């Protein structure tokens, strides 16, 4: 049975196609697909060398093996770079990410995690000298991932002045803020000399490529964020010409295979300017690919629901996501 993603909205099947189809039944397919996704991720985030030098994991599970190697490579690249935050901030960030990750997995809202910051460890505040500062940017204004989020607002007084919910788009880590898609992904700066919350951020993001975590996520949340992103960026991308091999102009930005491409130039200095601010070309490509990967995995997982362990199948049947429940029922009826 070949599942369709139309239940999640128009264009979701085409979106999934951007990441390519694969079968969870075929180990070679799985190795190739996940290997390719990690290579693309490493290229965009700058840890290709470390990934190439990482020995293959001994895990029998190719998805876990790719993840372990990728995260180890990312960690080494951060260790070689400049610290982006202080140890104090990094410790608070790491604790918050772990807390948000656990809650998001449980609630099925891991892609966009939101919380009352005062309920998080240290109230999501850290100290710098005499000052108490917010460990994350308050990102609740209308922007590329949505029209803003009112809650959950802080119910207790915040030592560092939180007046909004903490909202992190962990599915698109390191571009975690709806209003900050210009430049380098803010999450890559979450690294201090001793603590690397960025690794936890990436761990959460890539966990959504694992079938079990993917199926736990309410895909309606992801689809809604994608539709908003697509609406906001479509007019900007429409101004970009399609790439034609042999006819490309040096230094010009093109659309190529659904993504942005600069011919003979740096993608990292290119971007799209719109009313919601500038979105850097790497941010656009990364965000789009994360959405595409999510639905490609969802499609592959639905196609082979029977491969899931029994508790996974129970989870699907009792999911809050009606599309997922409906598909599970269809599979049962088809047997």
């Amino acid at each position, binding site marked *: 049975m070949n599942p369709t993603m139309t239940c999640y909205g128009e264009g979701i099947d085409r979106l999934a196609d951007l990441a390519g189809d694969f079968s969870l039944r075929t180990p070679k397919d799985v190795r190739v697909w996940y290997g390719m996704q990690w290579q693309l991720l490493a*290229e*965009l*985030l*700058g*840890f*290709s*060398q*470390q990934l*190439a030098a990482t020995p293959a994991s001994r895990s029998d599970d190719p998805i876990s093996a790719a993840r372990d190697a990728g995260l180890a490579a990312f960690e080494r*690249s951060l260790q*070689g*770079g*400049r610290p982006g935050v202080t140890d104090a901030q990094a410790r608070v960030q790491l604790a918050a990410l772990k807390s948000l990750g656990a809650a998001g997995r449980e609630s099925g809202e891991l892609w966009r995690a939101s919380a009352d910051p005062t309920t998080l460890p240290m109230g999501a505040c850290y100290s710098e000298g005499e000052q108490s500062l917010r460990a994350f940017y308050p990102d609740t204004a209308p922007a590329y991932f949505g029209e803003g989020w009112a809650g959950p607002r802080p119910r207790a007084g915040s030592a560092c002045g939180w007046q909004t919910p903490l909202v992190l788009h962990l599915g698109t880590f390191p571009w975690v803020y709806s209003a900050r898609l210009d430049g*380098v992904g803010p999450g890559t700066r979450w690294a201090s000399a001793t603590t690397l919350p960025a690794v936890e951020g990436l761990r959460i993001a890539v966990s959504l490529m694992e079938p079990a975590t993917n199926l736990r996520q309410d895909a309606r949340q992801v689809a809604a964020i994608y539709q908003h992103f697509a609406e906001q960026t479509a007019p900007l991308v429409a*101004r*970009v*010409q399609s790439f034609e091999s*042999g006819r*490309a*102009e*040096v*230094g*010009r*930005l093109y659309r190529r295979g659904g993504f942005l491409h*600069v011919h*003979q*130039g*740096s*993608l*990292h*200095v*290119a*971007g*799209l*300017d719109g009313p919601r601010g500038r979105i850097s*070309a790497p941010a656009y490509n990364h965000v789009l690919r994360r959405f595409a990967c999510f639905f490609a995995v969802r499609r592959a997982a639905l196609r082979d629901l029977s491969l899931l362990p029994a508790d996974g199948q129970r989870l699907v049947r009792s999911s809050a996501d009606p599309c997922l429940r409906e598909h599970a029922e269809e599979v049962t009826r088809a047997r």
Partner: protein
Amino acid sequence: MNRSTWINLATAFGVTGVIGGALFLSRRASASAGPVPAPGITPPGPGPSPQIDLPPLPTAADVNGDLTRNWGDTPLDLRPLFQLVEEISRIFGAARYLAIAAKRESEFVTTAHNGNAANEQDERDDSLAAYTNNKDRNPPLRHGDQAAAFGSGGLFGALAPYFLWTGVPEVGAKAPLLNAPPEIVFQPRAAAFGAAVYMQRILKHYRVDDVADIKVGWANPGLLGASRGGTKYNEVRARFLADAKVLGIDLTDAQTIPPKLDPSAWPGVHAVFAGLVGAPPKELA
């Protein structure tokens, strides 16, 4: 000393001499916007140039050196190019130096161009002067008229005629860009080739006390001689050191950039061209 004076100084020495001209103008090319989806700008010039596509930017798989440590905010996809120059030229430290130079000259936009806007007549005047004053004592440029009208551009802000004569002091009429149109400076591998040759020339033939001195010679080799220590010399040094700081490259990190760069292992112009650009395309033959 103003920039025109530098050029006059440089041209007085001639490209075939050791000085080689002020190939790179120490001025930002108009690049701040980066690649945008607007229609391409056609540089002024007498007639269209042939389209030549060199190999794409190198990737991490093409280099051995570290692409993580001490690069600051250098774009991730340009680091392999700068690193490749270091490895091909065998000048340890060249990669970080070139990143700092490109930050100032082009803001990392490969098609940065001074000379394509109406208010950039001075740039076109400079390239015209460079061409007019040197064409009789150098091998002919196939696209000399276009180069004369081009101004400067590319990752390192090279002045077109000098850029196309890159390698002439070393290999004479076998210099590889003599038949190229000036727009080839927008191709990052070609721009990197020009930068590598010029850097080794400064290092080999001038008193270069530290990394900042390279940038002084980059602006005007004359500043490394009689004008050493003058106002302009100090200005260029200060600006370079500030650029390094803004970009986030630590010039005291000896693991990635030594206090003095050593060109003694330079493999020669043709080897560097082959390593950076590959076999010359038929249009350059």
